[in-house]
């Protein structure tokens, strides 16, 4: 995340949390890793330090990180938690997808058809791990 690529019409602290969640899912951030200090992170993304503080507090509250006095903030989440977050994020995307398709008047059958068609097209372009 840098200054330019967050959505200015959504709460920024939530997007900071999502940024960390995505990093955990992708594996660019792993259990036990140290995350930047609030000040460094605020500077990196050019965001108000109070907003970063709110996001860091929330990360700790939901159990993704822990702060060790004098040492910094570390990733606490384990593999099971990360899998769960990944599932939740996927569910959110699907919810939005179905809601939008619904509002366009697509039936379940049509949605299945359209998704299958797209998957056929993407075959080979997407990895199946």
């Amino acid at each position, binding site marked *: 995340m840098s*200054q330019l690529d967050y959505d*200015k019409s*959504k*709460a*920024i*602290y939530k997007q900071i949390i999502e940024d960390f969640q995505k990093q955990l899912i992708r594996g660019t951030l792993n259990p036990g890793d140290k995350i930047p200090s609030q000040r460094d992170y*605020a500077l990196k993304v*050019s965001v*108000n330090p*109070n907003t970063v503080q709110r996001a860091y507090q929330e990360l700790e509250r939901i159990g993704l990180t822990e702060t060790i006095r004098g040492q910094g903030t570390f990733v606490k989440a384990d593999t099971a938690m990360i899998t769960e977050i990944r599932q939740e994020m996927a569910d959110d995307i699907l919810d939005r997808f179905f809601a939008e398709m619904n509002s366009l008047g697509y039936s379940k059958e049509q949605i299945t058809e359209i998704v299958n068609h797209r998957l056929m097209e993407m075959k080979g372009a997407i990895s199946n791990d």
Partner: protein
Amino acid sequence: MIEFDHVGKRFGSVQALDQLSLQFGPGKIIGLFGPNGAGKSTAMKMIAGLNQPDSGHVLVDGQKPRQSRDKIAFLPEIDYLYGWWTLKQAADFMRSFYADWDDNKYTELLGFLNLREDMKIGKISKGQRAKCKLLLTVSRRAPYLLLDEPLSGIDILTREEIINTLIRDFREGEQTIIISTHEINDVESLVDEVFFIDQGRIVVSGSAEELRITQGLSLVEIMKEAFRNVQQ
């Protein structure tokens, strides 16, 4: 805390502030937004004790602004530095004037902002002059930092440097920064709380994050929306 209580101010036929009531809470970065002529500068100068309300009153931590000047570092929109000064001479002047001047901070920020003490104020670019003004204001350890249009007419890279200086230097909990600008887009992620003013009155105010959550709009869009409603 800074408080405006039904403040009115008129310049000739122009009502600059119209029964303006608001509170700037401590420990926040506050955006004072509005088009040119909305009353932003008048309000800022009033907090700095540089003009007086015709009616109502302004209080800084319960005191009149003129009695709280040592608490306020003000960056005015105008160029107040002498062109024949070097940055060092300007800093010496500020150092002799303000007891809360912090030399360590000054030296550190001088490097961070890529400025040099031998630069002549009258000979440097507009962006560099803006950075000098910022440096001289921020080098004081004042609890209130007032920045009047610190970004206007400045290139994008310098604007980013200015914003990052504020983020780097912001002392959470003990410092309050009030930044007036009509270039909201640049400070979307910088401000905690916002006040949109027009014709000397508040049109919309609130926490930036809550406004984004409840309205699903950026601050720029919220301001456009608010002003559209005012004009109808």
